[in-house]
């Protein structure tokens, strides 16, 4: 399936998702991507530059890609454990379909930055804050962005 990955990667080069840039981590490994995300406008992440590693499993596209945030981000759907994993929606094993595409997955990631899903959160404390104290959430998230996501 390297052919498919090559095609997907090439398509993402010519038509990258909004605010994103896709590269290979190492020149000769098609299965490891690094995605640079500009924090979307009108979010506490605006102005930050976030690095996300995308690891395509050997079984790709039969198994979903694994997404890790290399840049710390204050977000209810991203683990704050140094790994920055994210596992929800169609990135889950059971919901990923072989015909799902990386472009859609990355668009989904961006959408999550704009609108977190607190009901499916990996960090319940942040989710709680996002739901009940949006102001505080914004403040902390913005602070993290300036601290960790320096361009």
């Amino acid at each position, binding site marked *: 399936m390297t*052919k*498919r990955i090559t095609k997907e990667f090439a398509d993402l080069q010519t038509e990258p998702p909004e605010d994103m840039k896709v590269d290979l981590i190492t020149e000769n490994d098609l299965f490891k991507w690094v995605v640079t995300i500009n924090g979307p406008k009108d979010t506490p992440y605006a102005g930050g530059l976030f690095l996300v590693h995308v690891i395509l499993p050997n079984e790709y596209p*039969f198994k979903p890609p694994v997404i890790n945030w290399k840049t710390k981000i204050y977000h209810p759907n991203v683990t704050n454990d140094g790994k920055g994993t994210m596992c929800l929606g169609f990135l889950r094993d*059971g919901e990923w379909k*072989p*015909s*799902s595409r990386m472009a859609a997955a990355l668009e989904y990631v961006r959408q999550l930055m704009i609108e977190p899903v607190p009901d499916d959160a990996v960090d319940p404390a942040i989710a709680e804050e996002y739901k009940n104290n949006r102001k505080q959430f914004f403040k902390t998230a913005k602070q993290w962005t300036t601290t960790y996501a320096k361009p």
Partner: protein
Amino acid sequence: MSHDLEEAEEDERALELSTLSAIYPELLRDPSDPVSATIDIPVDPVRPVFVFFPPTSDGMGPSLPTPPESDGKHAGSDEPLRPAIPDALEMHELSHLPPVQLRINLPSTYPTEQPPELSLKSVWVPETILTRLEGEGNILWEELGRSQVLFAYIDHLCEAAGEAFGFSSSKAKAITISPELRIGLLDYDLKAKQAIFEKATYECGVCLEPKRGAICHRMNLCGHVFCVECLQDFYNTCIVEGDVGSVKCIAPKCGQDDNLPANLNGAPSKRRKRDRTLGPSELLQIPLTQGTVQRYVMLKRKNALESDRTTVYCPRQWCQGPARSKKTEALDRDEDLESDEEQQHEESKEPQDNANDPDSQTQPTERLAVCTQCAYAFCKVCKAGWHGDFYICDPKRKAKMTAEEEASEEYIKLHTSHCPTCNATSQKTHGCNHMICFKCSSHFCYLCSSWLDQNNPYEHFNNPKKGCFQRLWELEAGDGDDVGRGFAGGYESDGGDDGFDGQDDNPLAIPDDVDSDDEAFEDGPRGAQAAPPPRNHPHRQQVVVRLPPPPRIQAAIARRAVAGAVAAAAPAQVNAEAGQPPPEVRIAQAGPVRAPAPRPRGGAARRPPVEGLQRFLELVQNDEEDEWDSDELGDESDDDDFWQIPFR
């Protein structure tokens, strides 16, 4: 081309036909007649046509004897639109219909004086429409000023065919066609669609490459197309890994929305609207290998069994395969892959049909389960070998019992005996072992639950052949701590509950090893005093007969039974021998009860003692009890043959 034909080229008529065949290569010219030809006008309407096939009146096949090809007459014209309400099942949406054949013959004075002779033939277009279309040829000829009209006419026909000759594409005005043509028309439509599909090119959503339809597969239910290679890759992986839940359409979000295209047959998919799970027949169609599909079916079935709470598992510890009731047996035996869809359908309904509610009294015939793996027949309720429909057994439903209920259950097991006729449990508070059932007034032995002759009840205790010989007064002070002197009762539970204790608890299962027997004797409060001679194992007989577990009737009934039986203990008529201390003690039963006894013929083979009783009761009813040999109840034999019901 024949010489005649060449010569005839000079003829204006022949010239028109050869021009026409350049435009329509499918035009067939008659070699023997240069001025006639035939052409098939394809009928591929722009919008699909709804076709209704009325069910045959007699239900015994075609009502018209003529085959459809014989002439074009009976297609639809003989059957005017019936007022019958179209059955949704027989309503089909067709995009491709068999062509209409046009036969052309040009008379010698054509085109100036005579119109072309046109005749149309179709298996499905009603005669009235064909006649009208034929007539339109003449009109056209006149309109064109009596000149060459064939091209214009064929063009006109093609246009009319594109509109399905005026048949509406709305469901309400569906065209009614004789049911004989049903298979033919549906098949034609399907093949035409398949041909178009195979010629087209699709981008496979998995490998993202354009592929010819011929190496693609279109999902039967949702119509999504993927290349065969990717589907094989994915489904094979799923099936190998056991992830059969993923064997469904792999298009993103497929099955999540309600507006779905009709399936390939044009019929709206009737079931599994949301569940895009693939059936085995479609997997074979893709194709996957037979072996893989078999594994898929096996895994699916296994999943269904495991998720169905009515599934019973084989009580044999070395097997533990899923076993089901009689009803499902047929389904499980049916290995026909093609029928699996229906099978799954039935399976999904089954839990209701077969609701094996452990709280309700299961009907006798529903208790039989046969293991699908080792073919062991056993009772779903008591997990013992199948004991026949007429045996009331003790349900195992410990999971549902509270600790209190369980303790009560244990107590009933330990300290009660049951009536051989009605199975009511009773507890003896004092007195001898000749009991009279409080419910049905049967006379029976408290030790072994044997039926006793009302007129000579004590023979049972005085016959040296019987296990209860000289034991009339055993348990004189009552059975149980709270009623007597602390006798441990007749039935010691193994206590250990491993969930598969059907056989451990099976009182009918007697182990061969003497060790456990000895142990049991040591354990028993009074057991050690008189170990039985190992040769005869006389205690076995009473184990066998006494121990069919007391019925798990509602605890309340059981308690009432206990209370009742206390009062019913018959006054003992002591005879000389009866007073002597019993030679051996029934605590011995604990041994056999405890030991696991996975002997293949297990419980089933040991059932007869009870049947012996039943047989005796039958004989009594017919006044033939003299024919009965009390040995039928069994005692000193270890031989399995012994347990067979003797024929007399």
